[in-house]
């Protein structure tokens, strides 16, 4: 990273609530930021993210639809570009082809009616600064790209702007020249003490040169921070993906400091996510630690080893880029080890190298009707004043149960002698059909209809038998897994010979106790990475989720709540977080 420049806290530019649209296309959405004096600030983002538009608003080429641009605290929205002490270096330089080098540099000075002598002196000085002394008489066409670049910078700097705006100035240069120019620009900025506002889509450029980076996407600022912060603590998957190369996968956080992804359980340093929340996990390719497939894990009740097969291994000059396929996932890693294609290896990641962020895509919750019911008699369940026949095996008479009735199973009609009658609360078209919310029998029902129904009109519903899903009450005995365990240490119990850490310390070592674990607290991981290993014995659809019964051998059956259907006899590992093991 570049050496630190002394930064004051004086704000030279401030953007407040900037919005900008082209037609219906919103290019800037509520941009708020400030730029400090002498800062090298970079706007970073992909094409069309709004970074150039922001620069052009500061330069005065575009007007914000709303919001304020402040220059040293004064609004400059209505000041035309030619009256702003801001100068721009354009992407394709925009040198005037009909003027020679010196005339180009002198352009601004001539407008300011400076004396000939002063102009000549300043032009000469600028040419020296950019290392092109003696080029004054040359025509623009005779210059190389790099030289034109320098002239463009000289032409802007000669006006002694308070801020220099650079719009992807190096984009047209080749790699080698670009690297040189990066260093030179940074040096120039430090030497002249001018605020640089730099726009680029090249993250490496941004990281090398900037004091502050503003990452943008779709007209929204994603993150503002120092290069190290942006790199190490990306705020979301986009930033992580954009800054450096990253592996981004979906994960679940059972509790603080623990995350499950890629079929393994990892310790991490992130906290504050909800129990069982869906998150994005970012791992930098260089942060993987390659281990033996059978290496020991340090994770309680699980294992943090990703096991897989090398599918490609490419030498990239300074490192190898290796792709490892682990089950469903492919991981990209960069290190100095050469692997053979087909090698089986294990991968680990240190807690500090796991970056967890809120998932961009939150899975839409399954919309269904969850009602309170009661087992009336063997094979009959009473819900909302009606009795339905359905299997009640495992439930006692009069036992309170939860009942799921899927909206697609509700037949909506106008027959007055139907099972339920009620009024339409709302009717929304979802693209395929109308979603009705119907108020009937003191309950709100979700149902579908092919035709539109006016609100507050009469409607009736009928529900067939045997389409109800009966589930034990969350709190009831039948809803959770009950295991008999032996306390083997203060924080360890043993169930069927498998040792589990628990959270609550016990002093009754040797005692046989009963523990319970909710199905939703049991997480499926790869075989070998869980505390239990087993095969799927049975799968039961519950209208919104599946209950998977995993046979772990020794008569141990564990009920797991899963979002997807599992094939029978599929192998899996199960992970249970110590905090989720409750003593009865």
């Amino acid at each position, binding site marked *: 990273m570049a050496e630190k420049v002394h930064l004051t806290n004086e704000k030279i530019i401030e953007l407040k609530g900037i919005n900008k649209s082209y037609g219906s296309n919103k290019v800037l959405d509520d941009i708020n930021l400030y730029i400090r004096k002498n800062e090298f600030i970079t706007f970073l983002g992909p*094409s069309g993210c709004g970074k150039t538009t922001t620069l052009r608003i500061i330069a005065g*080429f575009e007007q914000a639809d709303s919001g304020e641009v402040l220059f040293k605290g004064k609004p400059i929205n209505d000041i035309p570009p030619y009256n702003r002490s801001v100068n721009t270096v354009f992407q394709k330089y925009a040198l005037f082809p009909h003027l020679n080098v010196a005339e180009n540099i002198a352009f601004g000075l001539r407008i300011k009616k400076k004396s000939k002598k002063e102009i000549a002196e300043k032009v000469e000085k600028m040419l020296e600064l950019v290392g092109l002394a003696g080029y004054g008489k040359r025509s623009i066409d005779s210059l190389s790209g790099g030289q034109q670049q320098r002239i463009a910078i000289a032409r802007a700097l000669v006006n002694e702007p308070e801020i220099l705006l650079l719009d992807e100035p190096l984009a047209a240069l080749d790699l080698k020249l670009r690297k040189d120019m990066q260093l030179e620009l940074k040096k120039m900025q430090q030497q002249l003490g001018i605020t640089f506002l730099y726009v680029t889509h090249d993250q490496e450029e941004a990281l090398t040169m900037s004091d502050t980076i503003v990452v943008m996407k779709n007209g929204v600022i994603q993150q503002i921070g120092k290069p190290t912060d942006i790199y190490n603590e990306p705020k979301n998957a986009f930033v992580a993906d954009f800054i450096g190369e990253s592996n981004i996968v979906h994960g679940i956080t059972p509790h603080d400091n623990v995350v499950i992804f890629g079929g393994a359980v990892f310790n991490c340093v992130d906290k504050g996510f909800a129990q069982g929340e869906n998150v994005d996990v970012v791992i930098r390719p260089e942060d993987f630690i390659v281990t033996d497939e059978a290496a020991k894990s340090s994770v309680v009740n699980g294992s943090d080893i990703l096991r897989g097969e090398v599918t490609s291994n490419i030498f990239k000059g300074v490192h190898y880029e290796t792709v490892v396929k682990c089950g469903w996932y492919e991981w990209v890693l960069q290190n100095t080890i050469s692997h053979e294609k087909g090698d089986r290896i294990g991968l680990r990641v240190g807690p500090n190298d796991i970056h967890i962020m809120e998932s961009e895509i939150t899975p839409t919750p399954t919309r269904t009707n969850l009602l309170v019911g009661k087992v009336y008699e063997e094979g009959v369940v009473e819900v909302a004043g009606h009795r339905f026949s359905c299997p009640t095996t495992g439930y006692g008479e009069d036992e309170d149960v939860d009942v799921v009735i899927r909206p697609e199973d509700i037949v909506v009609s106008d027959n007055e002698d139907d099972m339920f009658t009620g009024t339409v609360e709302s009717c929304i078209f979802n693209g395929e059909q109308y979603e009705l919310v119907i108020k009937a029998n003191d309950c709100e029902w979700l149902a579908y209809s092919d035709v539109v129904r006016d609100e507050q009109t009469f409607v009736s519903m009928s529900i067939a038998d045997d389409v109800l899903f009966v589930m034990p009450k969350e709190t009831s005995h039948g809803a959770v897994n009950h295991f008999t365990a032996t306390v083997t240490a203060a924080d360890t119990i043993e169930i069927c010979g498998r040792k589990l850490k628990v959270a609550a310390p016990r002093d009754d070592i040797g005692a046989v106790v009963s523990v319970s674990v909710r199905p939703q607290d049991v997480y499926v991981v790869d075989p070998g990475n869980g505390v239990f290993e087993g095969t799927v014995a049975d799968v039961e659809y519950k209208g919104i989720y599946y209950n998977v019964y995993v046979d772990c051998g020794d008569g141990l059956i564990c009920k797991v709540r899963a979002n997807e259907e599992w094939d029978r006899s599929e192998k899996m590992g199960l992970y249970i977080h110590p905090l989720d093991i409750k003593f009865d």
Partner: protein
Amino acid sequence: MKKKAKNIGVRADVNNRNKWCAVPYYVWMIIFIVVPLVMVVFFSFTDSDYHFTTANYEKFLTRGANGELIYVTTLLRSLGLALIATLICLIVGYPVALILSSKRIKRSDLLITAIMLPTWMNFLLRTYAWMTIIGRNGLLDTLLALIGLGPVEMIGTNGAIILGMVYNFLPFMILPIYSVMAKMDHSLVEAATDLGANPLQVFLRVKLPLSMSGIATGITMVFMPAASSFVIPNLLGGNKVSMIGNTIEDQFKSAGNYNFGSTIAMILMVCILLSMLIFNGKGDKEEMIM
């Protein structure tokens, strides 16, 4: 991937005020383009007392003593003669463009200038010069008589009119085809040859399809003025072969029937627009400027 010209479709705000430069032109355009056209439409649908009528259009469909449609025949004759002239221009002009655009011809820029140069000479004068050549007892017949041929007595015939059209408009067929073909990437021809195409196939499969836009422009630039010409039939046709342009001229100059004249002008405009749609499709009109 680089962003390309982000300004397509969206003008930067800073340019906004420059749009006022065009406002005086809008006034001019409305006065001298829109209003006159509206007047033509208006006159075509009114009688001399400015009352609405379709009589002018009915008159266009008048049948003569022998039962033929007088004005329709004239219109069809004009379009027919123009079409023949256009085809001749294409057949004669295409090889010229093809030859000039080939790599073998040096100084093709000079030759194309030589071809365009006569168009700098007054159109009336050039047409008049043909009267000297093909007129009765003119140069052509005199020369033919020397070798014991003729006379062909061309003047006053359809042939003379077509000759006049071809002569005047041939450069406008050659130029657009030439500019398209000269811009053509020669490596395309090399690629086709490399893929085993013989010269004829190269022409049919590569050069001809790629020169289509030039052909379309050329056809428009020849057909349109040819179909509406009234000077050529006057000077070379001896007023005997009447074209639709003559009829319009008659109505405006001598008969003073602006209403019927406007009607014929309207019909001519529609015919030419339609034929241009057929020839040119959605071709680039800007190509009409060299």
